[in-house]
């Protein structure tokens, strides 16, 4: 089975593609009039919010649309051949052989019952009919290429024995086994941690160069696309709205949606007062409720009645740029460089009294080695190790760290779902570290509340929205009578800017952002003084994130709430927090004001985190720091400094001190705390990771 060779044109050419799904009720157009071309060796990004049809395009290319999906117009040409004219046999040859696909969830792409080596060897054995020995040699080579430690052992292990990052590397290896000409990556790093994501992205870029593979990179993250791709296509509600090279689209955008998208994401390089977030008003239209004319019309700032709501709007060339097109009628009329109109920004009230004080808080879990009989050796998981910090009234303290760093455990102890092993939590002048939630007074409970991460999980699906808020009021003892509580509930809905009619809706009738607002309303039902927000916007679409973030900050200003904002997204942390606490494996490695943490001297881990965050701004230059390996397990932490296994500054500390002793907390100027062995001189010699190029 040979590959199609001798073709110089674009590897993939999609022309005016339209894909529809057919349900019992109606035809739902998922993709309309979509065109893109991928040249050999080129990486093209496909960006858009969930539901915009970007994954459907990928499935269309693979000719794998399921029973309901059908291509209703246009063509997909692979190396000059129309894919719809190929037979099933030809398609089967091309899939996996010429076009490979990498999905979001690595575990779903691997067969859990088969050893890695066997899965890898299968690919060339099926597609090229090579011998077992040769296939094994090839597998070993590819696994070495994706930079996995100890390739021989890897081949001999099962998928569940590897970490998420390693699994994704195996999936990439699987895709590269046949040296395909086109690689489709559908959100390949969304399920991974930031530092692991950075390493995987780096790998994909290098391999693309090495093998000369063309890539179609699907993502919702503009920063990631900037780092990986040469060209970019922005999609909105089934249509491509703008297409061009990365530089053109990022710096010279010509579509209102692209502009709005950029304005709604925080950039760590920019000042938050000079460049505030602007949320996109309204909601994403459902596929069967798209407006006439421009799909983005109803949410667009430049909307003109009578023009934008009529007929078909074609893609037009942007003058002066090469291969840059946009779907906007008013392209030449709009002043694209005008700064966004911003409502007067309310001043933040001054930070007040200390509300919450943690003092050497420790939380250990005992895990029995033998779960069935409870006997045997006990292991201790140190989830939180000597946490000390203060949080003041109307202050935002961001807690940053990747999975397994102990942020959730800390939240549980604060909320009273677990009791502390050692140390103190002072709320006002009350010690609450040993008081489980059932022993806490209603007042204490209602003053510490939480906003949860997953909007689809935060509300009870079988209770109306109003009922859930009223229940919180009841439990907190707010309100005299049922009527009074109902009134308060409606006021809370006003507070989070939801229509009052939502009180009688079921959660399934609400969108993700709306659910998250209800979650916020519920948290503020008892006039909470401290609100723990556990990644409240990370599961939301970019355009909704800004609105929910602003809402949180607005309520905070009004109620003088202390906000503990747990997140792994440093961009948003920089945007909204006053102080930042960086955690790694249960330790606080750095604590200081936002400016202190985001500027050198850094803790080595903070430095790596900052470098790993993809930033959607071409004027930002980043130092590339790629961390080796994965986060160690909390069950088996490394001796000495928790970060020493991945630290690039380790050799600057004499005598292997990092491997022997946990570093003490050092206070630099202005209460900036760092847990590191590095000497003052080394710390002082650090350069900023993120630099804004002089314009």
């Amino acid at each position, binding site marked *: 089975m040979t590959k199609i060779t001798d073709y110089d044109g674009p590897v993939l050419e999609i022309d005016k593609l339209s894909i529809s799904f057919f349900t019992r009720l109606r035809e739902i157009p998922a993709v309309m009039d979509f065109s893109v071309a991928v040249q050999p060796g080129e990486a093209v990004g496909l960006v858009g919010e969930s539901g915009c049809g970007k994954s459907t395009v990928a499935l269309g290319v693979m*000719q794998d649309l399921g029973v309901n999906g*059908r*291509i*209703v117009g246009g*063509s997909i040409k692979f190396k000059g051949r*129309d894919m*719809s*004219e190929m037979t*099933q046999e030809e398609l089967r040859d091309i899939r996996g052989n010429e076009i490979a696909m990498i999905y979001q969830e690595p575990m779903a792409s691997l067969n859990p019952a088969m050893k890695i080596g066997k899965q890898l060897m299968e690919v060339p054995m099926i597609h090229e009919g090579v011998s077992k020995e040769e296939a094994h040699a090839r597998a070993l080579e590819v696994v070495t290429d994706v930079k996995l430690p100890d390739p021989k052992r890897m081949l001999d292990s099962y998928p569940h024995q590897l970490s998420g990052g390693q699994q994704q590397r195996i999936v990439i290896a699987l895709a590269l086994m046949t040296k395909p000409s086109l690689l489709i990556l559908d959100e390949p790093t969304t399920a991974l941690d930031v530092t692991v994501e950075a390493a995987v992205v780096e790998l994909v870029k290098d391999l693309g160069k090495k093998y000369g593979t063309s890539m179609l990179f699907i993502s919702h993250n503009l920063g990631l696309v900037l780092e990986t791709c040469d060209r970019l296509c922005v999609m909105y509600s089934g249509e491509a709205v703008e297409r061009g090279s990365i530089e053109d689209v990022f710096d010279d955008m010509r579509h209102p949606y692209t502009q709005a998208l950029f304005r709604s994401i925080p950039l760590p390089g920019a000042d938050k007062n000079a460049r505030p977030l602007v949320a996109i008003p309204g909601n994403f239209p459902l596929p069967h409720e798209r407006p006439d004319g421009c799909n983005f019309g109803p949410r667009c700032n430049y909307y003109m009645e009578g023009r934008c709501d009529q007929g078909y709007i074609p893609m037009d060339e942007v003058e002066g740029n090469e291969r840059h097109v946009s779907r906007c009628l008013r392209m030449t009329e709009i002043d694209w460089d005008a700064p966004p109109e911003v409502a007067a920004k309310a001043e933040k009230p001054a930070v007040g009294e200390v509300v919450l004080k943690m003092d050497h808080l420790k939380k250990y879990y005992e895990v029995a080695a033998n779960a069935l009989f409870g006997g045997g050796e006990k292991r201790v998981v140190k989830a939180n190790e000597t946490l000390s910090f203060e949080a003041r009234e109307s202050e935002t303290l961001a807690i940053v760290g990747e999975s397994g760093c102990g942020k959730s455990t800390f939240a549980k102890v604060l*909320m*009273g*779902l677990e009791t502390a092993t050692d140390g103190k939590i002072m709320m006002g002048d009350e010690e609450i570290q040993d008081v489980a*939630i*059932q022993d*806490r007074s*209603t007042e204490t*409970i*209602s003053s*510490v*509340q*939480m906003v*949860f*991460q*997953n909007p689809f*999980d*935060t*509300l*009870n*699906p*079988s*209770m109306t929205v109003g009922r859930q808020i009223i229940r*919180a009021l*009841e*439990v*907190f*003892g707010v309100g005299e009578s049922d009527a009074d509580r109902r009134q308060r509930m409606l006021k809370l809905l006003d507070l989070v800017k939801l229509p009052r009619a939502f009180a009688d809706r079921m959660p399934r009738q609400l969108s993700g952002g709306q659910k998250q607002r209800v*979650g916020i309303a*519920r948290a503020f039902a*008892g006039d909470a003084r401290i609100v723990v927000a556990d990644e409240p916007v990370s599961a939301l679409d970019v355009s909704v994130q800004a609105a929910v973030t602003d809402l949180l900050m607005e309520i905070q200003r009004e109620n003088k709430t202390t906000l503990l904002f747990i997140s792994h997204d440093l961009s948003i942390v920089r945007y909204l927090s006053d102080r930042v606490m960086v955690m790694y494996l249960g330790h606080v490695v750095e604590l200081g004001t936002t400016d202190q943490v985001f500027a050198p001297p850094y803790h080595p881990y903070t430095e790596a985190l900052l470098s790993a965050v993809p930033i959607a701004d071409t004027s930002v230059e980043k130092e590339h720091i790629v961390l080796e390996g994965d986060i160690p397990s909390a069950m088996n932490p490394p001796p000495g400094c928790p970060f020493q296994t991945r630290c690039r500054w380790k050799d600057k500390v004499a005598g292997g001190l990092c491997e022997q002793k946990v570093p003490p907390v050092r206070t630099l100027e202005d209460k900036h705390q760092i847990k590191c062995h590095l000497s003052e001189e080394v710390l002082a010699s650090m350069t900023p990771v993120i630099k804004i190029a002089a314009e």
Partner: protein
Amino acid sequence: MEPLTWTGNLSFLNLPLQTAAILFFILALLQILAGFVPQRGSTIYHDSTVAGGPGLHGWSARLTLWSFYLVLLICAAFLVLGMLMGTSGGIIGAVSRQFVPVWVALAITFFLSLRYRRRLGLYGKLFDSTIGMVGFGLVMFWVFTAIFAGVFDMIYTHAPLEQASGMKNKLPGTPMNGAEAEDFQWYLFGGDNLARDVFSRMVVGSVTVILIAPLATIFAFMVGITLGLPAGYYGGRLDTVLSFSANLILAFPVILLFYLLVTPEIRESGLPNYMAVVLFVFPLIFLGVLINSRFHTQPQKNTLFLVLALGIGGWLYLTLVSDQSSVIRLLPSSLDFFNIPGGILVVFVSVVFVNSPTVFRIVRGLAMDIKTRDYVAAAQTRGEGPWYIMLWEILPNARGPLIVDFCLRIGYTTILLGTLGFFGLGLPPESPDWGTTINDGRKLLSIFPHPALAPALALLSLVLGLNLLADGLREESLKD
């Protein structure tokens, strides 16, 4: 009096029915054979969709379906015409006439449900699925039969225990020997070996089943839920102990357990009564906790509801478990208004006892899954008690699988009741319930099959209906 034939004056429909049925079978066979013939003349579009005429296989499939509809239509004609003609329509006509109240009730139910199905939630959605509707129809047929027969003494033609001389093992449609003028003149489904009317016994037998099976299943669910929720929610040692006991009960041979329970020595020792005391207290606990966890923030309402629920429930409980003739005499006889006959109590207790461990395991699994959700964490962080979380946050979201299992479990219980009756356990030997009648008829099965066939078919149709109903519910609840 002439003996009734099966179809009487309706016999003109026999030939069409036979023809239609034969046609249906031939076409069904043809359809299978046509599947082997490759189809030609289809066009393949550029998007790899294939289109073409239905071909030989397609046509034979359509014809099969039409002939099946024809068979159904003729069967319906039998019933409708029979209803109008009564006994002149033969046995079918007479039976159809006897069931008139059931037909009317079914028609009203279906009319109202179909009319307002968009406002009826999951129940309304059931009417979107054919399978669900068929199942619901079968189940409601027996439910209405039981209601009309048990409450209003309608439908059945003779008292279930009444014997008539000379009617022993007589064939269906035999005129009753020595019938008075006001008596029904025929034994529609013949007589059994004690000369009782098979039709009447089948109809009256449905009352026992329809009364005990759902009620016992509800009790089993209460027990299973009240124990399963904490086991799944708390986990740990409590879960280990409860799951182990559930496994223990499940491992015990059911029939042996029943034999043990009905042994006179054990009955006299009062073991079934003690078990009833334990098992029947669970619904009471369930209700009390349900109300208390929900309203504890409003003490006035809470007390009112609790007093009402626990007062009425408690009195019902006490009258249920205390029996002046047994070891448990909790209430003075002046307050003890009704007793469950000892046999029925044993049947009830054993069915609940056997079913609750399975329910327990389902609920436990669901609770373990749902307790990891954020809304449970949200309830915990606002200081809700564990029982509120279990009953108001977890249980409502586990309702889908539980409703489906409830329907299936009524089916199992029905079969279990049949088994108990068949072995003569618990129920009195002259009881008209289906299990006992099947056992009675079994002895002369090779000579006179009709006494056993009627209750067997009744049992089959009810359980089939319940299973189809569960299928329909599952299908529709998944679509949501």
